[in-house]
């Protein structure tokens, strides 16, 4: 393994930079998507409700179909082929199309920033990703939305709940990043 992490990262950085658009332009594009979503479908952009409805399938082997059907949460948000679920599928397909067109597909298990801090072991990174996924979705359900439903769609409507979500999430993320990626070269 090369000792200089920057040397290791250069081809990766070039691949990641390929096909990138101006972030302000991308943000404006997402804003325009919101106009269409509100005016034409009467549905704000959102992701996490569809994921948690889909999760009812994963609970089937454990709870059985009766257990899922009588669950108080899934009774409110049952799995169905609705607007949110199709939007979620579209998000994956759109990203895939962009990846294929820009020829940037690359299998990645341990990303550069993680590797610089925690090393190259895939098990540790995958365990953190799984745990992070559990926590993020529990939090999203507790808060009633994620970075899409609250962070973008809610904030743009000037919803109090969404701005509280946005600011709290950012503060919690800053603290977590400071702890997780603290500089080991400075004292203990």
């Amino acid at each position: 393994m090369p000792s200089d992490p920057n040397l290791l990262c250069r081809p990766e950085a070039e691949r990641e930079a390929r096909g990138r658009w101006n972030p302000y332009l991308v943000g404006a594009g997402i804003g325009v998507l919101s106009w269409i979503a509100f005016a034409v479908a009467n549905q704000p952009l959102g992701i996490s409700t569809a994921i948690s409805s889909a999760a009812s399938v994963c609970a089937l082997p454990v709870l059985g179909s009766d257990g899922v059907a009588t669950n108080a949460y899934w009774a409110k948000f049952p799995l169905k082929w609705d607007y949110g679920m199709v939007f979620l599928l579209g998000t994956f397909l759109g990203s895939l199309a962009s990846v294929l067109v820009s020829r940037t597909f690359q299998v990645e298990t341990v990303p550069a920033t993680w590797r610089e801090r925690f090393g190259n072991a895939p098990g540790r990174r995958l365990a953190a990703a799984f745990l992070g996924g559990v926590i993020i979705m529990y939090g999203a359900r507790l808060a009633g939305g994620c970075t899409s439903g609250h962070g973008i769609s809610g904030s743009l409507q000037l919803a109090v709940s969404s701005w509280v979500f946005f600011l709290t999430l950012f503060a919690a993320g800053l603290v977590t990043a400071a702890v997780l990626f603290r500089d080991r070269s400075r004292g203990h």
Partner: protein
Amino acid sequence: MKLPLSGDAALWLALVLGAAFGWLLHRGGVTNYNVIVNQFRFRDFTVLKVMFTAIIVGGVGVLALTQTGHAQFHIKPANMLGVTFGAALFGVGMVLYGYCPGTGVAAIATGSLHALVGVIGMLAGAVLYALSFAWVEPHIQKMAALGKLRLPEVTGIPDWGWFAILAAIAGVVFWLIETKTRPTGAASRQ
């Protein structure tokens, strides 16, 4: 054509809008673990640029649409305990995972195996929430539940005033980012 669309037409629109959203997330660079994590380390400001621009551009347009009767607001209730506790967990999870739910799903398409594992974790998290919902709903979601509040109602500052304030903040923040920090790509590496 009668709006809003319903039935199959709405589902086709959802597919097109979802695909455009996924395309933009990838082109914006936010399907990249390093870009998201380094936002929280102040080494890459892509996430802030994308989100803040989306909020202002989206918000001004949606406001105009609602004021002319072409759209309705969909405000999530301000259940303050659930929102703050949930958002705090979300922030911890987002840095640990390195994606949020939408960018995580989109990142699977880039070849990110850890994004895929995190989506499996998200499904598990949703199952945990559904199992705990019978307790969580009365004990957390109904606490400090203030209803579907909007900032203009709470503050007395009108909608347009809020967007003027947000645009001014964005102007200053974006100017600082563009003049005082290194370019996004380089910053994301270090």
